[in-house]
């Protein structure tokens, strides 16, 4: 398969400008002849739908939520990066580019990342104009804070609800276009398949989640803005309905899936408290500034933390990383917590947690100082766990948080299927093997507001504006496929609910393809996932019927795709014989247990091609070329 990133030669800083100039344009009068289908109305989708409608295109937008404002983007907390340099602290487009490339452990394209940094400044302007109430200084100017992986303050935020405020901005722009009649909004509508006509993406098949009605929509291009796939792991910080079905079904229609094994695990989440647990809640990383992470030295020590004397505690991050201590990066902190729990030294009822202790900080700075800094986090922790973190250490554990992998896209955000685009967390484009905090919101909005409006014209200009109807056989065939899928799921009538199978899958993925991976473990995990998939199609129990609101059916249809994607993640992790970013292979570490990259052999994007049911996916490599940054090994000792 031939694929080309379409990034122009030439100096980094000129690539995007030049590229925009080489793009073909659709003249204003012709834009209204084109119909664009936008799937997903989170940050990426809402910003794209609104911007394209403003340009004059006809947009149909789809979400399974009851309103665009409920997309998972709403939950983002910390902030959004932009190279504004308002703080005069040495930030620049180049520095944001550099931090992002390095933070991604040198597994992203220079050209893409530079463009992201370049348009980041426009995003802030746009959002402020929409009325997004970013935090401000007393003088009325915008405030910033700093985030992991950066030495400058470039993160814009709206208290702990940045994602909410940005999404409401994009949602209001979208609502304006709905009112103008330029966007037709379909809520509680799940996209079940992509329809190809003459080798191009020309439409979708949807299922109305209230009535179960299956129908088709045709257009000239399809944009997938459907979010990440962290829920393959069952437990994650993602919203419960996040799923991978749209991207996975696109993959089956020919779109390559890139770097599926690159997942981010966040070290400070509230640990699992029991079998019934449905999701994991993120606690701010900032807690590690004052909290000390420890576990008992002895395995199986069940004493209360207060009763364990200082000499019998192991402050394992401080011990292993004397210079960074508790502030090592996300992946390092997560991995080490796992190691001590694997040794039987984990704490709490489940043994899957480590302490984050503020006793010393409270002794040093006083209760009031700590409460002023972290009071709200402490409250939240108390609310969820019923324990008082002022009196007893918090218990934390890592959790799946974000997926860097996704559909392969070129510089125009087009997948390997002509006319099919992927944006936001759904694509793989900008974060390499590890995403920096506050960069996902930036990327989603960059894609939607400032990239796709330029690049989609280049494709549309080459195709006739003639509309096709959904009476064509390609649409009928795809609809039949969906109807049959529903029928098949309902007819199995086995013993296990979709939720049970999802949970089992999550456990396999977490144990073998989570924070730490080995060839041996991955091989056995692959067998286990295959067996589970086989069991799913034989033994799943889906209640109710197809022509009503049916949560059991929705879940089953998503879990079926998680099972297949899970296997590909394992295959990808097995193929990548190196450790980089969020991908840690036990065989590839330095003498003192740190991640060991292999730039000579693995500085490439692994893009997988679907070859049919139960066939091995085929690997295609996009070599990564670094002309501007020098590849170095990270060290936090």
């Amino acid at each position, binding site marked *: 398969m031939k694929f080309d990133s379409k990034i122009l030669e030439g100096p980094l800083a000129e690539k995007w400008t030049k590229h925009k100039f080489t793009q073909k344009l659709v003249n204003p009068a012709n834009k209204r002849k084109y119909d664009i289908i936008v799937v997903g109305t989170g940050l990426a989708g809402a910003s794209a739908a609104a911007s394209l409608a403003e340009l004059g295109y006809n947009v149909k937008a789809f979400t399974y939520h009851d309103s665009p404002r409920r997309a998972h983007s709403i939950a983002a907390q910390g902030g959004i990066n932009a190279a504004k340099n308002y703080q005069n602290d040495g930030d620049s487009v180049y520095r944001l580019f550099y931090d992002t490339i390095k933070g991604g452990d040198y597994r992203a394209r220079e050209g893409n990342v530079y463009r992201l940094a370049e348009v980041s400044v426009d995003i802030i302007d746009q959002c402020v104009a*929409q009325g997004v109430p970013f935090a401000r200084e007393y003088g009325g100017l915008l405030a910033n804070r700093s985030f992991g992986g950066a030495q400058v303050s470039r993160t814009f935020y709206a208290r702990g609800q940045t994602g909410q405020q940005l999404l409401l901005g994009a949602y209001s722009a979208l609502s304006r276009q709905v009112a103008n009649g330029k966007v037709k909004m379909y*809520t509680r509508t799940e996209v079940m398949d992509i329809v190809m006509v003459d080798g191009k993406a020309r439409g979708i098949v949807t299922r109305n989640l209230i009535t179960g009605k299956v129908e088709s929509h045709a257009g000239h291009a399809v944009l997938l803005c459907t979010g990440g796939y962290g829920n393959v792991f069952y437990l994650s910080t993602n919203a419960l309905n996040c799923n991978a079905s749209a991207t996975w079904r696109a993959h089956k229609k020919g779109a390559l899936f890139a770097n599926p094994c690159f997942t981010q695990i966040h070290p400070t989440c509230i640990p699992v408290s029991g079998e019934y647990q449905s999701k994991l809640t993120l606690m701010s990383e900032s807690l590690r500034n004052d909290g000390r992470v420890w576990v008992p030295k002895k395995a199986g020590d069940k004493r209360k933390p207060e009763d364990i004397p200082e000499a019998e505690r192991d402050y394992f991050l401080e011990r292993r990383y004397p210079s960074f201590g508790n502030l090592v990066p996300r992946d390092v902190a997560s991995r080490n917590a796992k190691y001590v729990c694997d040794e039987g030294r984990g704490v709490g009822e489940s043994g899957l947690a480590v302490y984050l202790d503020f006793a010393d900080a409270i002794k040093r700075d006083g209760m009031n100082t700590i409460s002023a800094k972290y009071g709200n986090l402490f409250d939240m922790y108390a609310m969820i766990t*019923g324990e008082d973190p002022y009196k007893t250490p918090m218990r934390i554990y890592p959790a799946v948080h974000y997926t860097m992998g996704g559909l392969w896209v070129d510089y125009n955000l087009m997948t390997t299927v002509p006319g099919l685009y992927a944006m936001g967390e759904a694509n793989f484009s900008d974060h390499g093997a590890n995403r920096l905090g506050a960069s996902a919101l930036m990327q989603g909005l960059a894609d939607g507001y400032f990239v796709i409006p330029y690049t989609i014209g280049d494709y549309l200009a080459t195709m006739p504006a003639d509309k096709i109807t959904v009476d064509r056989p390609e649409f009928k065939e795809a609809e039949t496929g969906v109807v049959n899928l529903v029928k098949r799921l309902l007819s199995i009538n086995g013993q296990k609910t979709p939720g049970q199978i999802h949970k089992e899958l999550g456990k396999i993925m977490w144990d073998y393809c989570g924070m730490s991976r080995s060839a041996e473990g991955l091989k056995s995990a692959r067998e286990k996932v295959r067996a589970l998939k086989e069991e799913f199609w034989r033994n799943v129990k889906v209640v109710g019927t197809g022509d009503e609101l049916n949560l059991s059916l929705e879940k089953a249809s998503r879990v079926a795709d998680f099972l297949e994607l899970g296997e590909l993640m394992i295959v990808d992790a097995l193929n990548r014989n190196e450790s980089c970013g969020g991908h840690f292979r036990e065989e590839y570490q330095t003498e003192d247990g740190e991640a060991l990259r292999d730039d000579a052999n693995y500085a490439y994007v692994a893009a997988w091609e679907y070859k049919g049911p139960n066939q091995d996916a085929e690997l295609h490599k996009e070599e990564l070329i670094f002309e501007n940054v020098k590849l170095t090994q990270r060290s936090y000792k």
Partner: protein
Amino acid sequence: MLNEKREFYLALSIQHLNFERRMNLKLRIWRQRDANSKGALVDYEVKVNPHMSFLEMLDELNETLQQKGQEPVAFDHDCREGICGSCNLFINGRPHGPMQTTTCQLHMRHFHEGETVVIEPWRAKAFPIVKDLIVDRSAFDRIVQAGGYISVNTGSARDANEIPIPKIIADEAFNSAACIACGACVAACKNASAMLFVGAQISKLALLPQGKAERKATGRENGGSDGCGGFWSLLQYRGLLG
């Protein structure tokens, strides 16, 4: 203020910690096949772990129902962090239950052994029932479409720091903007009026200079009200999250 709030939360949670691992509850849940069918309260008995969240308790019930071949109780939810506004249960006669938090943030330790818990959908004309506990809140979207935006096209914004906005105004605008569109205010109001929600939308736009040009046209002249600041305690709750 900060400490008071802390005491409040801790008092509420800690005192229940000594519960047995499982407690017995009787649930009376509104079941309704679809918009056109008649609904009724149906009784269920559950044994719950007090550490569970309210929705996890329902998840467990739903797993049991499905294993028995029965349909799960349909309810809306997604983020389970108190921010998406999806969850919306009317619990023992109060929207979101007894704790002044969103339904998803409510934990079972706030109930006691043997208690009967009545779970109903939002009941308001504006929110027709879709199925069981799920209602149609698309009226909120229509309100925003009717003028809940500033008319600015992508690309035509000036530099973000060109219009300074005093911190106090920015903070106030934020408070209104924090509404999560859960609909509790409508469900709680005897007249099922959406005034809190609408107030929240209007006042954000009326406060900010960016909304100025359009004030007359969209009725934002009167300033609106603060809304509830995003389901009551939500703000305090997530305020400093990083």
